[in-house]
């Protein structure tokens, strides 16, 4: 038993090590600018190349992946520290420690609820297969996967909040703390009740169907007939003989689902506003400023990996207890080590793999030393004088003229900014429509303030005559909702996208209207960035 646990602990450590190394490798493959998380970058700043280099050095990402990873492991083992977050400059360890109880409460409660439901419904269904109640329950259980987690979460949250008065969002710890306004066992459960239900519904269909299928199979086995023939009661047959056998393959699945549970937790915590690990994951992945938070992600991966390892161990032990056949696997002599040492070809293959890994690491080290320096974050300024006027009335009713004037275009590797003025030249107010808040790119001709980039000759040749729109996000001063009669907005707007060279570029001014016909306006002249 001890040897078994020790071996699994070792393989667990290897699992966590490979998980975190994979995280570092993946992060160094994604083309992003983590420096932008700590120094201001983009069109409205004057951060130069040296400042970005200094920031890179401070974050340690100018070093090779292997060195970065070594530092991470050293910090973790020597100091027990997970590093400092890039996005909010706070220690990652306490953040994880604060979020862990929230997610643990959610996942544990949800799993228990789900298992209770799956066992009850699975037994109920398996005892009367193909009947109407069985069919009905199967159909209802599908809701958990047939409906998008957001739809399910928001729907249930609002339903319960409206009709039962449950608290619709936020978290309450069991023990009182300064962070949360409420505490106590009952309010903890009350706040988590609906998230638990959503969590259980998301996982219920799979487990319920698996249990039902396994139970149906088991109930047809000859030993069940034997047990019945010996006079065992129906409940004894079900619980002692059938269920114990059917639950075997289900246990490892629960342990394995601990990783998937984080993905489910991301959805549920987002909908219910719970400050858990999923919330941290969204924070780490959001990439708002052009980068992802590596220390936070590595810490999350480590935490979730540790849980998966421990739960797998527990599931294997429980599985061996429930199903004697799998006990063969828990041979204390160590199947894996024996199998490797007894086979020269396997040993050779493992040696080759190790050699390749070392060569890869050496290649990584050598390559990043000789890698070219980052291109200078220069600001290129194109003064211009583009005057346009637009008739918003489309030939009906009074003439409604809008005049625009572009004076300057600033282009940086990661952004752009347009200096312009918009004048309402009529004696009526003109409405300005803000761009669609959805994260999707907006299709021409409906757009907000933006750069409209014409298709390249190559794209045109391929028959793709689609204009790309780089929407503006930063307005100085803020864009009003309406332009009053005979007034002018003068200022600048900028976006975070790279501007391609040698392409026709139009300045999009957004969607305006004085009546019920919104109309998008962009310059008639194009600019080409050499």
């Amino acid at each position, binding site marked *: 038993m001890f040897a078994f646990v020790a071996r699994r602990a070792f393989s667990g450590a290897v699992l966590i090590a490979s*998980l975190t190394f994979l995280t570092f490798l993946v992060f160094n493959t994604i083309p992003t600018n983590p420096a932008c998380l700590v120094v201001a970058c983009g069109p409205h700043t004057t951060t130069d190349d040296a400042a970005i280099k200094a920031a890179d050095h401070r974050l340690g990402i100018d070093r090779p992946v292997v060195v970065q990873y070594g530092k991470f492991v050293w910090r973790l083992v020597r100091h027990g520290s997970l590093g400092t977050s890039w996005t909010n400059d706070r220690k990652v360890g306490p953040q994880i420690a604060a979020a862990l109880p929230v997610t643990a409460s959610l996942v544990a409660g949800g799993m228990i609820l789900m298992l209770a439901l799956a066992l009850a419904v699975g037994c109920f269904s398996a005892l009367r297969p193909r009947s109407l109640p069985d069919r009905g329950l199967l159909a209802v259980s599908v809701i958990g996967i047939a409906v998008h987690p957001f739809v399910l979460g928001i729907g249930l949250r609002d339903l319960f909040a409206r009709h039962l008065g449950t608290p619709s969002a936020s978290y309450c710890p069991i023990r009182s703390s300064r962070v949360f306004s409420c505490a106590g066992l009952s309010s903890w459960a009350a706040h988590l009740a609906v998230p638990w239900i959503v969590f259980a519904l998301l996982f219920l269909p799979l487990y319920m169907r698996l249990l039902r299928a396994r139970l149906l199979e088991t109930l047809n086995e000859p030993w069940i007939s034997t047990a019945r023939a010996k006079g065992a009661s129906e409940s004894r047959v079900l619980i002692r003989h059938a269920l114990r056998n059917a639950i075997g393959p289900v246990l490892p699945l629960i342990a394995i689902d601990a990783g998937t549970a984080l993905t489910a937790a991301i959805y549920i915590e987002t909908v219910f506003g719970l400050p858990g690990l999923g919330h941290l994951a969204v924070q780490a992945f959001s990439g708002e400023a052009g980068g992802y938070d590596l220390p936070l992600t590595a810490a999350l991966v480590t935490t979730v990996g540790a849980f998966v390892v421990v739960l797998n161990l527990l599931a294997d032990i429980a599985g061996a207890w429930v199903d004697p056949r799998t006990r063969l696997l828990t041979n204390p002599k160590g199947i894996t080590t024996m199998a490797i040492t007894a086979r020269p070809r396997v040993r050779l293959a493992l040696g080759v793999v190790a050699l390749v890994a070392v060569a890869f690491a050496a290649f990584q080290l050598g390559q990043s030393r000789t890698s070219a320096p980052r291109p200078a974050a220069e600001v290129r300024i194109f003064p211009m004088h583009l005057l346009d006027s637009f008739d918003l009335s489309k030939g009906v009713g009074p003439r409604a003229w809008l005049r625009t004037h572009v004076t300057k275009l600033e282009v940086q590797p990661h952004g752009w900014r347009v200096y312009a003025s918009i004048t309402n030249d009529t004696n009526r107010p003109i409405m300005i429509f803000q761009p669609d808040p959805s994260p999707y790119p907006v299709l021409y001709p*409906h757009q907000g303030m933006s750069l409209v980039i014409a298709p390249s000759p190559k794209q045109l040749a391929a028959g793709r005559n689609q204009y790309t729109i780089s929407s503006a996000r930063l307005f100085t001063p803020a864009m009003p909702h309406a332009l009053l009669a005979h007034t002018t907005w003068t200022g600048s707007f900028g976006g975070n996208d790279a501007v391609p060279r040698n392409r026709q570029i139009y300045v999009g001014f957004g969607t305006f209207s004085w009546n019920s016909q919104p109309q998008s306006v962009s310059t008639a002249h194009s600019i080409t960035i050499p």
Partner: protein
Amino acid sequence: MSDVQPSSPGEWKLVWRRFRRDRVALGALVTLGAIVAACFVVEPLLEAVLGHDGSQPIPAAVDVNLNPVGPFSWATYIAPDGVPHRAFLLLGADGPLGRDELLRLLAGGRVSLEIALIATAVALGLGIVLGALAGYYGGVVDAIVSRLTELLMSFPLLLLMIAFGQTVAGRFQDITAHGLFPPGVLSVGVVIGVFCWFYPARLVRALVLSLKQEEFVEAARMIGASDVRIIRQHLAPHLAGPLIVWGTLVASGVIILEASLSVLNVGVRLGTASWGNLLASNWGTLLVFNPADVGVQYPKPPLLMVWPALMLFVTVLALAASGDGLRSALDPKERQ
């Protein structure tokens, strides 16, 4: 030529006979067929009849607040050839761009169903092979497959997806199998499949592990059957049932996952509609989720949220019910 033996029906004929007796499963299969026909056959016909497709923006189908018009509306637009057309919008417009919601819903269903098919095939193929190998041979093979499964399952899927999308997805975007699929569908299907195989692998491994202790495997080995033959002829039929049930479930999970991928810029590009895209654009997305903001810019008509969710629900329900019917029709133990 003396006496003619009465021919016994073949295996699949028997399966179909048993399946047909099950009214609910038959109804589900018909529903599924209707949805597939609507997406793959009716949608192109509708495009031809109505004269516009799902990506045609119709500015007049949007009011001053960028509110799309409701069901049963007519709107005029200038076609690319400069001729004004009157468009009939049965389900109204889809959002601030004023595109035909019905056509987008059906064309989106096509994309989602194609992705579900590809991803499920990839996941099941990988899972069955790896799971059966691990369960049957044990030892090193089992150790490698199990550790690989644990590694992939405990890694946040989202991060792998971001990495994939930022690095290589662009290169696979244009693989369309000679125009059989819209751009991006094949790559998204394969990506999802590659990240979903561990469920069937675990399932198959656990099943094979307990099945290989059974007498019939021992008997087969005793009469000299090879490993390949034992796996294919004796073990595989036992796996069909659970795997079909799982396959119907994953096909629906894939459609939902596809919605999450679109948000991360890994999924199907925006020009192409899919149920995931339609859902995400109305219910908000993971990385940009702020329910308070949704109603501020322009109120979303509730019906627009209902259509894709409803289509998804009906499809998954039909998939699950027909999968269940198929499972019991295939099950050798439910023959009598």
